[in-house]
């Protein structure tokens, strides 16, 4: 298939899971910018420390859509603490790998979830130290946060 995408990537691109908006979300995070060609927005519904529901909206290439789909699958029904530990490598592995030039999409997915969780903590009035890079504050282009190529 095109760009050496794995079958898993194409499956999640063709039929993405968890697409949409949660109107009464407990946390919302958006990363990326349209200039670079990728934007991800994540919505979380959290009850008793568990991510009950998650939805995403993504503007971007096939791998951006597939990583959003897979990342939301990986955190749905999980405790918030587990979601915080989700790494882009875990998303890449779950998709059976991404082409090297597309690994940045998985970084965006990780950042989008972290941004949504940071928003959740903020709304709860809880102090948090969820790491964000300065560039991501200004609209990250999904640069590599130290992740190795899958």
């Amino acid at each position: 298939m095109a760009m050496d995408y794995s079958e898993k990537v194409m499956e999640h691109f063709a039929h993405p899971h968890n697409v949409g908006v949660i109107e009464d979300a407990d946390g919302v995070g958006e990363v990326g910018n349209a200039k670079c060609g990728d934007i991800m927005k994540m919505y979380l519904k959290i009850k008793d420390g568990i991510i009950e529901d998650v939805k995403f909206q993504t503007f971007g290439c096939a791998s951006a859509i597939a990583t959003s789909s897979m990342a939301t699958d990986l955190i749905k029904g999980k405790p918030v603490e587990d979601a915080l530990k989700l790494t882009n490598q875990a998303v890449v592995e779950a998709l059976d790998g991404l082409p090297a030039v597309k690994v940045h999409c998985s970084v965006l997915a990780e950042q989008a979830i972290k941004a949504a969780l940071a928003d959740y903590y903020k709304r709860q009035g809880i102090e948090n130290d969820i790491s964000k890079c300065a560039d991501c504050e200004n609209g990250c282009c999904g640069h590599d946060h130290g992740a190795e190529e899958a």
Partner: protein
Amino acid sequence: MFVYADNAATTALSETALAAMTAALRDTYGNPSSLHRKGQEASDALRHARETMAHYLGAQPSEIYFTGCGTEADNWAIRYGAKAGAAKGKRHLISTPIEHHAVLHTLQALEKEGFEVTYLPVYDNGVVRLEDLEKAIRPDTALVTVMYANNEIGSIQPIPEIGALCHEKGVLFHTDAVQAAGHLPIDVQAQHIDMLSLSGHKFHGPKGVGLLYCRKGIPIKPFIEGGAQERGKRAGTEALPSIIGMAAAFRESCEHMEENRRKVSALRDKLIAGLSRIPYSRLTGDPVNRLPGMVSFCFEGIEGESLLLRLDMAGICASSGSACTSGSLDPSHVLLAIGLPHEIAHGSLRLSLCEYNTEEQVDYILEQVPQVVRTLREMSPVWAHMMENRENPYKD
């Protein structure tokens, strides 16, 4: 349904070219440089192919140099055209920002070697203006290189007028005619073209062969050294079956140019009219002065690679100038040069038709593209932001 709509990338080999090549591969295996009968048979076939190419370009056979591709012809013409100027102390070149990379990268290399390049503005329709060229030409201008027609947006440049102006000012004029050859009438004499590059596989010929037309008297030096082929200007045993295939395809395309143009431009116009009905879409390139088969659009709120792959899943082969398809963070240099912002250029789609396409295929494209665009928009946060203060056309 399967629809191949990426003819600006490459075309299917014509039956005529295939038959000519098959015969050449089987029978005409001699080396045209050999003196024996098998060599002379090959030499005759080579001469015949050269005469065909020259005839349909309005050139002399002695002005045709076969190359390995259009890119080689571009590199050769510009590099050695510039050097011929430098020998007379002229180190200024003129081009456009929407050229193919075969031209742009050669110009950038020459800039590093001390040449100065002026890039003419192309405005929102992707066409240069003669007054800008006239102002840009200087006493030390060695070469003007402007593509005949653009490979992403289809805009056709005023080539005869550019050629006339260059000749009036005594400046060498090269055109990259890779997208135009076989589709638009070319006459190097009437259109005042000094050097022209073309490639076999854009008009149903084979890949791996092209040519440079270089007007008699231009002191162009060999790009590839090592033999007496092509009158000592381009060494290497001639790829005779490919050259024969290119000539067969070129003859066929030129003989049927007018009927193909009518058929293909009618399909193009139907497709353009249908895609224009998609909300927040825009045609890129000149609406009138465009290649017969070129349909190029940007759809706001979505990204081109997703669009392309979803269309591929529906059986439609197309192309995009988005960053994700280029492997860089920037979308196509052509779309940026005609003034489109990055976020809109990311949502580009190119459908390039040929005479093998049918009206049924165009109808199928018109059924699929609006659906795919809508699906991608409905998952796009950019589209959602856009619709915050507007009426969403997809709301029932």
